[in-house]
């Protein structure tokens, strides 16, 4: 029996439970009562000591959300979510107040150490752990940011990197100017929900002409049961500035499904560049498809200025359901948008992901490279839109979508939409679907690799051009992660 056929039988034994970030942390929590109403929105805003305009903004979003219905166009299926049966706010006790590493609950620090997230700023600064890359981290635990490292050092360069709650208190005018300017409150169902109840997330402001001196990253962790995580990230790159930002995420293993609905807004002004990378490794559910995170995310970048550039790189290996389309609005003339994606699905995972490139300015260009890898019983869909506005003369796009199937119980789908309202637009689209071949695996095994090593090698080769887009600091870890996600995918 060829290996690929055997997969059908073997897949039943898939051990997605090897998820190594699945432990729970015992921390005393402060929670809002279950369910969602205006009082909960007020509770959240008050907990965060937000300015009055913010509460009004949230309430406005809440009322719009109430009038909307859940979208159904994606190729995903899941039982109806009971939005009244969730907690919308959960924070570790004593997490409010000044945040330096010294104030953080030692249990939490231990957890981040187990997750491999570098929070030991002192040691890194003192050069004790000089082999570790210097990365500034904002650590978000359930609904709140517990600590942000390297803040002082970044401040010297004029870069603001803090939690969005802190930004609302300390840099209210900046937040007010940009929040919702890329993803309006009523953009879509999940974005509206997020706008009403978002709890925390990161805020980045890079002033004119500044090249951010280190990688910035946010680490999201869902810990509490029956709690939705709604984070909000806002990144502003002023004229001629540059910033590279990475988000990572994990969650404990639970039988129940947990909801995660984030909104990320990026704004790049003239000649600015934002590089946004994601390594998404939320708990995918067990081998029977029980549990796992529902990941409904709205990410959008606005290339507002001339010659600006926004590049999204994502490695999606986790979540039971992924609904995510990081997009670029190419408003400024000569602006450029890029989307590099690796989406790995195994077990019963469902991925519906892709991008939108909206060409509005003149001579704008975009590039989309998507690699989908489906194994087990998973469904993996690329959904993308490339559009050129009437005035977007000289718009160019190149899209390449490659899918790789492992076994024959999974599916890969490509749904590209192209709209050119301008005859000078030049759009190219390529798509391939291939199966991982028995011959290729046999060749590798003949050279001494185990079947799993062979799959990992072949898949890493398949995604190579996207992997190269990731910041160096995260490359090796990501390659390993892709291997782990596919463990058990062949016989």
């Amino acid at each position, binding site marked *: 029996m060829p290996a690929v056929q055997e997969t059908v039988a073997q897949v039943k034994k898939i051990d997605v439970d090897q998820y190594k970030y699945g432990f729970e942390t015992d921390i005393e929590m402060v929670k809002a009562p279950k369910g969602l109403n205006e009082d909960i929105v007020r509770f959240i805003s008050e907990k965060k000591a937000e300015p009055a305009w913010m509460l009004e903004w949230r309430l406005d979003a809440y009322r719009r959300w109430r009038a909307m219905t859940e979208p159904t166009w994606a190729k995903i299926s899941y039982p109806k979510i009971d939005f009244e049966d969730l907690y919308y706010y959960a924070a570790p006790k004593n997490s409010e107040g000044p945040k330096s590493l010294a104030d953080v609950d030692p249990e939490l620090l231990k957890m981040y150490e187990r997750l491999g997230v570098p929070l030991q700023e002192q040691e890194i600064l003192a050069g004790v752990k000089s082999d570790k890359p210097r990365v500034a981290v904002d650590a978000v635990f359930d609904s709140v940011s517990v600590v942000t490292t390297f803040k002082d050092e970044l401040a010297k360069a004029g870069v603001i990197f803090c939690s969005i709650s802190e930004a609302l208190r300390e840099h209210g005018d900046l937040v007010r100017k940009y929040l919702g300017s890329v993803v309006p409150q009523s953009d879509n169902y999940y974005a509206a929900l997020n706008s009403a109840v978002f709890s925390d997330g990161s805020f980045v402001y890079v002033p004119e002409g500044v090249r951010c001196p280190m990688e910035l990253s946010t680490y999201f962790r869902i810990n509490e049961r029956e709690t939705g995580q709604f984070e909000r990230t806002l990144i502003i790159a002023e004229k001629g500035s540059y910033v590279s930002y990475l988000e990572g995420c994990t969650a404990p293993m639970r039988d129940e499904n947990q909801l995660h609905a984030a909104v990320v807004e990026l704004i790049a002004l003239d000649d600015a560049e934002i590089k946004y990378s994601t390594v998404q490794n939320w708990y995918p559910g067990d081998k029977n498809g029980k549990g796992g995170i529902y990941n409904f995310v709205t990410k959008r970048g606005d290339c507002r200025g001339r010659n600006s550039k926004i590049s999204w790189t994502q490695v999606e290996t986790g979540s039971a359901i992924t609904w995510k389309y990081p997009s670029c609005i190419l408003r400024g003339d000569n602006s450029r948008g890029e989307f590099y994606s690796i989406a790995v699905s195994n077990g019963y995972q469902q991925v519906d992901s892709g991008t939108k490139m909206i060409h509005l300015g003149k001579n704008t260009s975009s590039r989309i490279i998507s690699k989908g890898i489906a194994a087990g019983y998973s469904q993996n869909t690329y959904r993308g839109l490339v559009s050129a506005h009437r005035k977007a003369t000289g718009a160019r796009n190149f899209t390449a979508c490659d899918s790789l199937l492992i076994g024959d119980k999974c599916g890969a789908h490509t749904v590209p939409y192209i709209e050119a309202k301008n005859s000078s637009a030049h759009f190219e689209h390529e798509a391939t679907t291939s199966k991982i071949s028995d011959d290729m695996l046999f060749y590798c095994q*003949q*050279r*001494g690799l185990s079947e799993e*090593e062979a799959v990992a*090698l072949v898949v*890493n080769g*398949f995604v190579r*051009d996207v992997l190269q887009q990731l910041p160096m600091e995260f490359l090796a870890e990501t390659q390993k992660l892709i291997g782990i996600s596919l463990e058990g995918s062949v016989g």
Partner: protein
Amino acid sequence: MLEIKNLHVKLADEDKVILKGLTLTVPKGEVHAIMGPNGSGKSTLAYVLAGREGYEVTDGDILWNGESIIEMEPDERAAKGVFLAFQYPMEIPGVAGLTFLRTATNAVRKKRELTEMTTPEFMKFVKEKAAKLNIDFEMLKRPVNVGFSGGEKKRSEILQMAMLEPTLCVLDETDSGLDIDALKVVSDGVNALRGPDRAMLVITHYQRLLNHIVPDKVHVLADGRIQKTGGKELALELEKSGYAEFTGKAA
């Protein structure tokens, strides 16, 4: 010592029987050549030795150093020293030759309970072997076999063989597609690996190769069995008379 005893092989998914009682022994230190008409089962034998799926051993056994290997996974066999230079090497897009060689070398070393090679050790080793086989080092930075010419693929197979230090080498038509100079280089590479601890099985259609890699024995495989065994001179005879005598038997 390689002992193939009364080997019967059919396709797993079809009724087609390919090997029908093949018996063959290759002692360590010897090189044996296998010749035979197209479609006679030479590559099948090579694949079955290496453990490829899709074939079913219905009778007989294969012993390597006294141990039956027919139930082993291909990578276990590789760890035991089995190496197959493919008639048609596979392309692996996106995986650089060096990455592949390094992964394979260390995988095999680990299974043989040897320490993994460090980067400098590996680089030194691979540079040395590549130079001997006239392989441009730049070529190893390209994805495995992708866009390689026929001859380049064959040379790269022999480089892998040299890196993995196998004890049972099966070469399936490694000479086809090689130009005259490359044939010499590849033969030198193979000869360099000859030694008292290695057994080699060389599948070829051309006696020319056997001028370079002089075999201890030549076997004729036709109709799923070894029909005749002789010395080097048998290859010359076949060159003249062809396989009519053996295929006639089959009819």
